[in-house]
């Protein structure tokens, strides 16, 4: 009966999944299987936090080991002397059963200690009572198991008393009389009833993750997390029925729906979210919960194909407010923390895509950026001819003309690097360093366009696609094979997203190229000597999204810097606040993300904050100026240029 009830409830969820858009997430099964081993069996992401990691692993591994016990209990419930073939007779299984049942008790105790004593903020907004219920049920399941085994030992049933130390110790509670006979029956039945009751409760609770987590991890994104799946909008063909992002529940992909059913409300994402941490409306956890609740409420409608007397309601603003969708900096910290590989950022971008392309509903102040990208192919609406203005103070920089032979390396300057006065310092430093190292490079000059990243992260996929196609045409036409990009966002787009549009190049970030040149001895040594202490701020789109952590640090070392790390560094670095097109939006709620990050950098006591992306540079420099701080903000390249090149940089 319990199994039937479970199946009926689980099928309701399954049908919602089936009604969703298929997700093409089955390539590279090897990589997916490896992730399964590490994230699920190995609990790798859970161990990112020590106590909760031990807590969860105890319960999870206990759950795996104790699965056969359910069958054992079922058999014994019918007849006291029946047991599992083989497993029921061996000492090692009795030992494991006893050990892991005890570990689960310990795990539950840790869980309660965390929830009731430590009370971390990450649980704010989670269903605390539901969690208590679940934990108490788990506790009940293993306690009844231990007591059942103890009573069996007391009754002299051969269950390897020497292997099951805890049950053995507990057996002193029982005599050998009639009372223990009854107790043995009571415990085996209560154990079973708790297990079956739990089974029927599962599909409607957040604990469903014990079923959904494994497939969700398998279907997670392979490769760099900075990559977004394209929409491929074709205006030419009339029958093209492109889904413009996600509006209602049935627009979600299967992976996106599975994400919702996999969330256990642990709040690790919320804890690291720059928006939430600075008092914004967005919490990645609450976003997922709110979407889940609407999808669950609309389940009958969804499985009926979205038709009916009541219509599916748009997810924004019914489940989540507009502001929540725009608060995201797409830094990916939430995705990285999530133990079950929920992809919050991709869903947020899909919601933005619909708001921007179907509804034209987005923060007004970002319009200038979109218009600039659309008409002048850069976010500031500057003339293309000004892209080479920064070269004026330098010795001849080669501008690649149509028909020219391709350079060894194409220097992708980026819009910020070309137009922004502060970012130009970095651009000049890179150009001077490449020249000094004898690298044969050229720039596209006026033929370079915005990569489309700000438009894409804003949700304007069509504008991005237009720019991607145009840039790929230029790059392929010029025979470019290797690109060095200075902006972390350009880097991510060129390296990870342009292959979808036919642009396949070897793309390196300037810190990688500079680090290689230093290693080859083509740059340095360092005549300026020590330069004081420097703290490096990881750009999200270089670090967390693309795993480039060491090259910028190597360059700083070559520049003679004494590196100090911020508390949140490398994969766990805190965003500067400019990603996800937030650079082009106002930040009015709470405190400012760039101020928060700059304060963290300043607290290290470093004289200089080093950046590797123009967005980070401008954001942190603004924060420094607003604070009137004496700490300097400069790009890694500028610091290297200052210490290895004869005249001062700039």
């Amino acid at each position, binding site marked *: 009966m319990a199994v039937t009830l479970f199946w009926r409830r689980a099928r309701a969820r399954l049908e919602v999944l089936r009604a969703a858009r298929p997700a093409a997430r089955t390539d590279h099964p090897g990589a997916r299987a490896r992730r399964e081993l590490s994230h699920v069996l190995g609990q790798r992401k859970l161990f990112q936090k020590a106590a909760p990691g031990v807590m969860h692993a105890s319960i999870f591994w206990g759950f795996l080991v104790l699965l056969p016990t359910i069958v054992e209990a079922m058999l014994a419930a019918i007849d006291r002397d029946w047991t599992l073939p083989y497993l029921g007779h061996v000492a090692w299984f009795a030992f494991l059963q006893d050990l892991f049942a005890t570990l689960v008790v310990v795990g539950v105790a840790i869980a309660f200690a965390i929830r009731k004593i430590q009370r971390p903020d990450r649980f704010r907004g989670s269903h605390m009572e539901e969690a208590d219920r679940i934990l108490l049920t788990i506790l009940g399941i293993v306690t009844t198991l231990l007591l059942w085994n103890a009573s069996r030992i007391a009754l002299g049933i051969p269950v390897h008393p020497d292997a099951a130390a805890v049950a053995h110790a507990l057996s002193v509670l029982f005599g050998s009389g009639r009372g223990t006979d009854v107790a043995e029956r009571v415990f085996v039945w209560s154990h079973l009833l708790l297990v079956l009751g739990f089974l029927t409760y599962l599909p409607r609770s957040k604990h469903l993750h014990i079923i959904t987590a494994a497939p969700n991890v398998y279907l997670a994104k392979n490769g760099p997390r900075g990559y977004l799946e394209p929409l491929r909008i074709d205006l030419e063909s009339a029958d093209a029925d492109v889904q413009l992002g996600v509006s209602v529940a049935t627009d979600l992909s299967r992976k996106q729906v599975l994400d919702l059913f996999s969330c256990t409300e642990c709040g690790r994402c919320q804890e690291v979210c720059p928006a939430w941490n600075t008092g914004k409306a967005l919490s990645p956890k609450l976003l997922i919960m709110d979407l889940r609740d609407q999808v669950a409420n609309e389940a009958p409608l969804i499985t009926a194909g979205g038709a009916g007397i009541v219509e599916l309601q748009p997810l924004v603003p019914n489940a989540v407010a507009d502001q929540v969708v725009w608060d995201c900096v797409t830094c990916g910290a939430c995705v990285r923390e999530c133990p079950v590989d929920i992809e919050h950022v991709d869903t947020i971008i899909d919601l933005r895509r619909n708001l921007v392309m179907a509804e034209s509903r987005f923060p007004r*102040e970002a319009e200038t*950026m979109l218009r600039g990208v659309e008409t002048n192919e850069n976010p500031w609406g500057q003339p293309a001819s000004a892209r080479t203005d920064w070269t004026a103070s330098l010795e001849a920089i080669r501008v690649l003309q149509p028909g020219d032979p391709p350079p060894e390396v194409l220097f992708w300057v980026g819009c910020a690097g070309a137009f922004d006065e502060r970012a130009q310092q970095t651009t000049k430093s890179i150009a001077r360093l490449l020249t000094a190292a004898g690298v044969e490079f050229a720039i596209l000059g006026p033929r370079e366009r915005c990569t489309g990243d700000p438009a894409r992260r804003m949700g304007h996929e069509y504008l991005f696609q237009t720019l991607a196609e145009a840039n790929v045409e230029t790059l392929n036409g010029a025979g470019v094979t290797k690109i060095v990009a200075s902006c972390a966002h350009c880097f991510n787009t060129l390296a990870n997203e342009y292959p979808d549009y036919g642009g396949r190049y070897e793309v390196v970030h300037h810190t990688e190229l500079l680090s290689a040149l230093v290693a080859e001895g083509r740059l340095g040594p360092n005549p300026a000597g020590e330069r004081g202490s420097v703290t490096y701020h990881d750009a999200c789109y270089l670090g967390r999204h693309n795993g480039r952590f060491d090259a910028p640090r190597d360059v700083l070392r070559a520049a003679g810097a004494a590196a100090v790390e911020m508390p949140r560094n490398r994969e766990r670095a805190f965003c500067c606040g400019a990603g996800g097109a937030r650079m*082009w939006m106002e930040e009015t709620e709470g405190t400012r993300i760039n101020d928060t990050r700059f304060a963290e950098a300043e607290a290290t006591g470093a004289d200089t904050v080093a950046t590797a992306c123009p967005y980070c540079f401008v954001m942190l420099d603004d924060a420094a100026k607003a604070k009137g701080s004496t700490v300097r903000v400069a790009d890694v390249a500028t610091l290297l240029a200052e210490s290895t090149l004869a005249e001062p940089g700039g």
Partner: protein
Amino acid sequence: MAGAWVFAEVTPDGPHPAAFELLTHARSFDDDPTAIALGPGATAAAADLGAHGAATVYASDDPVFAEHPGRPAAHVLAGLIEAEAPDVVLFAQTYDSRDVAGRLQGCIGSALMGNATSIADPRHARAEIFGGTKIVDVELAGPAPTLILLRPKSIAAEPTGGTARIVPLEAEVPEDERGARIVERHEEAASGPRLEDAKVVLAGGRGLGGPDAFAMLDELANEIGGAAVGASRAAVDAGWVPYSYQIGQTGKTVKPEVYLAAGISGALQHIVGMKGAKRIVAINKDADAPLLAMADLGVVGDLFQVLPALTEEIRRRKGS
């Protein structure tokens, strides 16, 4: 003589000032231009239109034109054009007139040109593109009349002191030609001229050091008269002035005659919002500030001395 028509927007305070500019322009190729005024106050506006050169004013005071944006006006214009066959209809490049012109083109299928800065005759007009760096001469083909949207303030309006013949229009706008209805109007309260419209904009940045220093800009704006005070993003982020003051990429875009920046270094994000200013004056104590490089008049100095001195000098000259 070409038949030139002017679509004169009617506001509660009389004709939109751009209508006088359109009439002045129309007189360069038609001695007796015609104006069309639709909506409450149209008949009353005819006198002002006549005084700026309109020989004939077609007027209708029907509230339907105020209650439904665009469509009724386009419908009536289309009918009138069919009957009278003018050579050109001029519109001001405003939100409301653009709406009417676009819809009218949908009805009659003529050539429509936006953003014109001057008009030679019904078939030839000029526009400036890329922030005024390129001039484009346009020839309009297709059936008459051509439809041309002229940018406001392209020329100065010249009164003629004439009187217009008023032709009352019996507006009949059927239910299905009315479209969207305006249910509510919301006007944001503001004192002084709007930042985007002001001829002189005084903007303060981080260099002002705090909210109190904005009083110096307010005082100077008062002395100049009709000047508006704005700010850089840094000053707004610091909470010294509200967001409505912000000029730049994520704030307002201004194109005043004179733009005075005090204590603004000139980050790209700010320059984007004010690069269209005709004259730029920058005061900064840092001689390397990028805005000084692009200013017509750059003052390297302490704004706490320069601004009061400037206010004093204006006061003195006004007094004399």
